[in-house]
């Protein structure tokens, strides 16, 4: 048993840190893609697509006319008015952490506090050129330290499961969005599907989820779009895949159900979400359309998040 507000804060700290990490990962892919001259010539659509998949299209275009690399980095990484910018994520996570310090381990708190203390040292000027990668690596490190600190130091009881739920609900959403980048980045007109550029784009997506080498370890037959999709959607050994996230969510909810001796609507939705992936086939995903499948998954995951809030958190 714990304060609903505390559980809510833990859940959102984890979500915001995971969001910051995935934003960093997405920006990294985008930056890589834009290094391909033939794609960069195609009016920088990869920067626009990053804005779209991060779910901040309307906010972005209210402030900026064009999705130039500078504008996108400024909005997604540093803009305090964008509640999901990397800066806002870290600040919100740390503000929440301060409010629930007693529920965090020292390691978790120190990681969030250090991130917040170091944050003002990063700005648009410092991330020009090669600085961008250093910044994105730093963000990723902060998040990994937090997630690692959580797993390594937190007592296995409700507070832990609420924190982990935050991580996996967010990651479930974000992996789907990263995979969806491919849908939004259009191949240049004359490029051939499965050709050099296409290949390069798929490889970047794998890299974004730290899956490039793992993919090769699992498949050993070169990059194939349907295998990559299968890998990121249905392979449980891939820790950022949709099925892994869904399995973790289900597991956390099961533990909470056990601890509290009560199950809710969120348990049913989590079970459904997981089974669909566990017993589905990748052919069906492609038949439905990858983009449509991902949109539906994101929507179901949202609903699950809302049900978790309703049952345990602040509604």
């Amino acid at each position, binding site marked *: 048993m714990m*304060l*609903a507000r505390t559980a809510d804060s833990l859940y959102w700290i984890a979500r915001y840190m995971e969001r910051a990490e995935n934003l960093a990962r997405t920006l990294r892919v985008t930056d890589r893609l834009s290094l391909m001259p033939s794609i960069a010539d195609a009016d920088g659509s990869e920067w626009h697509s990053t804005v779209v998949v991060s779910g901040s299209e309307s906010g972005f275009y209210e402030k900026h006319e064009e999705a130039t690399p500078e504008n996108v980095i400024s909005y997604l990484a540093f803009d305090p008015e964008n509640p999901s910018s990397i800066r806002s994520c870290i600040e919100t996570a740390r503000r929440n952490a301060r409010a629930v310090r*007693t529920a965090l381990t020292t390691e978790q708190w*120190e990681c969030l506090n250090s991130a917040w203390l170091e944050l003002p040292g990063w700005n648009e000027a410092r991330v020009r050129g090669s600085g961008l990668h250093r910044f994105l690596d730093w963000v990723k490190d902060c998040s990994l330290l937090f997630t690692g600190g959580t797993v390594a130091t937190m007592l296995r009881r409700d507070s832990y499961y609420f924190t982990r739920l935050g991580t996996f609900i967010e990651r479930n959403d974000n992996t789907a969005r990263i995979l969806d980048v491919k849908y939004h980045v259009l191949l240049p007109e004359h490029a051939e599907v499965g050709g050099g550029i296409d290949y390069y784009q798929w490889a970047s997506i794998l890299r974004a989820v730290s899956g490039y080498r793992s993919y090769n370890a699992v498949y050993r037959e070169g990059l194939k779009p349907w295998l990559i999709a299968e890998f990121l959607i249905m392979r449980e050994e891939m820790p950022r895949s949709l099925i892994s996230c869904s399995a973790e969510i289900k597991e956390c909810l099961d533990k909470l159900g056990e601890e*509290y001796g009560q199950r809710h609507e969120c348990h049913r939705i989590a079970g459904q979400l997981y089974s669909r992936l566990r017993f589905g086939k990748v052919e069906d995903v492609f038949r439905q359309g990858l983009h449509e499948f991902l949109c539906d998954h994101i929507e179901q995951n949202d609903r699950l998040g809302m049900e978790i809030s309703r049952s*345990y958190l602040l509604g």
Partner: protein
Amino acid sequence: MAQAIFDEMGAPGGEIRQAYKTLQAWLGETPPEILTLRREEAETFFRRIGITFAVYGEGGDPERIIPFDIIPRILEAAEWRQISDGLIQRVRALNAFIADVYGAQEILKAGIVPRDQVILNDTYRYQMQGVSVPHNVFTHIAGIDMVRVGPEEFYVLEDNCRTPSGVSYMLENREITMRLFPDLFSRYNVAPVDHYCDELMRTLTSVAPRNCPGEPTVVVLTPGIYNSAYYEHSFLADQMGVELVEGPDLYVMDDIVYMRTTQGPKRVDVIYRRVDDEFLDPLSFRPDSALGVAGLMSAYRAGNVNLTNAVGAGIADDKAIYTYVPDMVKFYLGETPILKNVPTWRCSEKADAQYVLERLPELVVKEVHGSGGYGMLVGPMATKEEIEAFGARVKAAPEKYIAQPTLALSTCPTFVNEGVAPRHVDLRPFILSGKDIKVVPGGLTRVAMREGSLVVNSSQGGGTKDTWVLKD
């Protein structure tokens, strides 16, 4: 009163006092670069842990660190015994006084404390009249501010009976000193302070309300992360293993207080509240308060929840009431006060006001209801303009002021930019009252970091020191 400044280590060039001999030797063998390094380490430690406090209305860094002086202050066992006995006696009298004020009012009837000073006081809460509280304890956690002017001379400067803060610094300062200077620490036999939070928890559970259904559920109520002492609130909740709640986490139904949890409502029995009286319950006090809980007072009066410290405890730490504390000791306990009060002029009395106005440049004048070093004049440090302006304020509302002689506060060796130099200090020990009464050997030593300054308040740039009480 001694006018020469008493240095607790011993006057420069003079005899080093017994307790400080080892420290003195250690300072001699430790190069200043090491001290500087250690001070930086301490600052990093405080930042990383997030031991910060907020300073209102000055802009700049909203989360500031209170400067920590790395050189400990040392008190002998015998010195401490006298202080500790005096503190226990004083707090027993203060609790008896508050219980009396909200009960039979014997001391008012006896004409020892003027009735108007109590009933018309801003800190008096008529809502508490006739309310009985467990063990008749009203100030469960008291912080008594003391100063020293000579080897044997300690004075109580101020009682804090409401929500005294600073105990987390006492504990964290010890933590950091042991970490930075294990060699020095091990050369002394220092009485531990780290059981404070266990004692606090025991105190809080010992004052469970009369209708408590079983093992009491204790919580710490904080105004939230923007409060200047928020770190301390979370620290104490954490150390006691209880929930740190904010007003909106609690609600009252049928005179019972509940907190909102992940498993629905859970009954709360004892609230260690760090929210001021006026904000506790919008139905009884300020209706615009968002920090409190509607209906809390009603649950409190019904004996379904206990609040620590009790509502209305502030009546005992009002600066005008302060002057009567030695009388309280005699009246309630029939004992001679062990701790002395600083002689105080009450400007509410005509002759006193006259005296004070004539001697402003040599006195410390305080607003009766002020705290934190705001609204006070330190005569010898003030400019002519400041004195004139303050004098006008005293003339306009004399009843709002008291005055005291400028005490020659003792000094302790302090590591400042110029090296190790004497700086003025005070001491705030913490006294816990529940079924029993306890004092952890130590307290918060505050130090004025600027040369010659007598203002030790953290809101005015004061720092803190670890305070060692030696065992026999």
